[in-house]
């Protein structure tokens, strides 16, 4: 199953390709869900729109409970640079803004806007294609991308408008249609059904970042998608669309995780993204095919991001398929749309089998990041018990980051966070290659995730302790100052009283009490 990689060069067709170290060959299971067809998911009764579906600041609701919203109307916005607005995916009434379980392993609830759909699916009357999209400036395009709520649809959901404002010049724009995880075919389906929109969206993005080179990368197990993308590029070239000459469609060898941003950059350009850095630092921006299709919709149709293509697949679903699904649709509705589950012995995973998130139950919404619902056999998902590490080192040969998983495992068990740092745990992309090839079936990725969050919690605790220490010191300083000031006031009052008595009230004429106090004062002065 596993095949260790070496950093050699390969020549394929026109474009010279490199290889990233490590990686594994996995059985694709790509035919389970037919990527040739995209079905329209039925309109759900209720939509749950999380206010934070992206990296960055959560959006603030701008609609009130009880108000009617059109399809595409803004539900929540944010003024933060790294954030994205949330739009109503269908027309209906906002019935609540409340906490709802998120599609996350933890089952934690976060703020969501809940819409009861009216079935009309009416677009907002203001939504119209932008006039003359060919003449829009980079800033106007970026503003449009932001208003449309577009985030990276490859899974990281980083707000695209922020990504498209890199602090340095970009030479290469990479469009990621690799889709290396088994089972998932949503990008394949998108490339087959909307190739021209993807390329036109890419050209808009190219205008924003002003890159000289554009590469559309597709894994070579998707010949149909590659052909469609090449045809679309040819067609645009033939009609003389500006910038289309710079686009090249490249088939990359199938090897997990070739679709990882850093791995793909290595394969296409031979360059490596610096440790802890981002691709723009070496003049590259990488986007998912779904993202540029959304950019096309935002600019040419004027429509915000309210739907996406999602795969519902796995051995435990009756009719696996690709759906065009509204953001906010409950996962359960999608399972029903795909014919329902085969048996109760299933596990719901959002994403793929390698890097996906296990869902707590079906009552969580589809979000902008949801590319796939994998209904896995429960028996498969529950691992057999792990055996001790035999230090065979296979994990190190498949790690695409060239880390040493067995050492990381050792230190994660020992909670030696400083040593984990030295072995660059933070660079682990949690791709799961090491766990797949481990002959002892050690859940290595779980150890790494655990160690990462434990370390972060430790750092947060230390920061909190520092804050508490400072606040305690400030409080003590304040109390000391107040006590001192009170003393000073007392002394001042006494002195003032004494002075008053000396000038105005002769002591022998005053009452006995005054005389006593004056005597005391005299003693103090003396």
């Amino acid at each position, binding site marked *: 199953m596993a095949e260790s990689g070496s950093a050699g060069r390969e020549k394929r067709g026109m474009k010279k390709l490199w290889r990233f170290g490590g990686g594994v060959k996995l059985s694709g299971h790509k035919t389970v869900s037919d990527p040739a067809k995209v079905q329209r998911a039925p309109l759900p009764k209720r939509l749950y729109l999380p206010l934070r579906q992206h990296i960055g600041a959560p959006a603030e609701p701008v609609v009130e409970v009880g108000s009617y919203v059109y399809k595409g109307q803004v539900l929540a916005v944010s003024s933060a640079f790294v954030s994205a607005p949330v739009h109503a995916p269908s027309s209906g009434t906002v019935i609540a803004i409340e906490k709802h379980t*998120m599609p*996350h*392993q*933890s089952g*934690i609830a*976060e703020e969501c806007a809940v819409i009861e759909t009216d079935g009309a699916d009416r677009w907002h009357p203001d939504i119209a294609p932008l006039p003359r999209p060919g003449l829009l400036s980079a800033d106007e395009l970026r503003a449009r991308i932001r208003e449309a709520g577009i985030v990276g649809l490859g899974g990281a959901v980083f707000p695209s408008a922020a990504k498209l404002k890199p602090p340095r010049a970009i030479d290469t724009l990479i469009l990621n249609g690799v889709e290396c995880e088994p089972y998932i075919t949503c990008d394949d389906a998108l490339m087959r059904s909307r190739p021209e929109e993807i390329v036109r969206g890419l050209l808009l993005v190219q205008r924003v970042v002003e890159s000289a080179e554009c590469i559309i990368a597709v894994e070579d197990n998707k010949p149909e998608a590659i052909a469609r993308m090449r045809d679309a590029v040819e067609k645009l070239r033939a009609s003389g669309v500006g910038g289309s000459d710079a686009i090249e469609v490249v088939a990359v060898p199938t090897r997990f995780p070739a679709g990882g941003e850093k791995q793909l950059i290595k394969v296409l350009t031979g360059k490596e993204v610096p440790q802890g850095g981002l691709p723009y630092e070496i003049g590259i921006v990488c986007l998912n095919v779904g993202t540029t299709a959304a950019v096309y919709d935002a600019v040419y149709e004027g429509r915000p991001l309210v739907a996406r293509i999602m795969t519902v697949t796995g051995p435990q679903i009756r009719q696996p398929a690709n759906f065009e699904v509204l953001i906010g649709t409950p996962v359960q509705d999608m399972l029903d749309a795909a014919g329902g589950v085969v048996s109760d012995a299933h596990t719901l995973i959002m994403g793929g089998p390698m890097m996906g998130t*296990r869902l707590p139950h079906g009552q969580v919404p589809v979000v902008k990041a949801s590319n796939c619902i994998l209904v896995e056999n429960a028996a498969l998902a*529950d*691992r057999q018990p792990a055996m001790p590490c035999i230090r065979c080192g296979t994990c190190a040969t498949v790690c695409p980051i060239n880390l040493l998983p067995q050492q990381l495992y050792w230190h994660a*068990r020992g909670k030696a966070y400083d040593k984990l740092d030295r072995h660059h745990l933070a660079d682990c992309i949690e791709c799961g290659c090491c766990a797949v090839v481990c002959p002892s079936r050690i*859940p290595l990725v*779980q*150890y790494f*995730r*655990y160690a*990462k*969050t*434990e370390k972060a*919690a430790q750092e*947060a*605790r230390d920061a*909190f*302790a*520092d*804050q*508490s*220490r400072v*606040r*305690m010191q*400030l*409080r003590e300083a304040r109390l000391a100052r107040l006590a001192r000031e009170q003393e000073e006031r007392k002394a001042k009052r006494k002195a003032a009283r004494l002075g008053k008595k000396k000038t105005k009230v002769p002591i022998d004429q005053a009452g006995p009490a005054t005389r006593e106090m004056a005597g005391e004062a005299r003693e103090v002065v003396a």
Partner: protein
Amino acid sequence: MSVIVLTLLGLVFGIGLGYAAIRFRVEGNPLVEKIDAVLPQTQCGQCGYPGCRPYAEAIAADEAEINQCPPGGDAGVRALADLLGRDPLPLNPDNGVAADGPQMVAVIDEETCIGCTKCMQVCPVDAIAGAAKHIHTVLNAYCTGCELCLPPLCPVEKCIVMAPEETSIREWKWPSPEAPAARSAA
């Protein structure tokens, strides 16, 4: 001759050391700082000292054992033992048990609060805001969970209680793969 050289050397070194003692003088006891850095800064006083720093001073002065801090738990005792080169001791049960589970924060029921300011005055990190005869509230981001504000200090029943702090997805921690629950769940 040798007497003169040695005397001169003695004088030179004496002046040098004397100057260094003034120039590079360290304010306070640096050991106290190091111990204080290990303590959890809950400022709860369960150790019998009015805050973490006084306890650190007591440890540095050899007046207190290293096992008096329940919020630090056994891990805290181990860290102190490592720092001071001593043997770890079991936590002193007289001071309370180590906190286990989510971070607890004080919550004031604003319906019952009478605005007596007692909790405000005792809070070691000024995490309670309010004024006399006005509702008080706890600033969650600063509350260390020291429990100093709980009854009997608070004169009203069920006005101030401890509640687990809500975790967001960003703060959520993956369970240990070695915990039995995690193995079946993940």
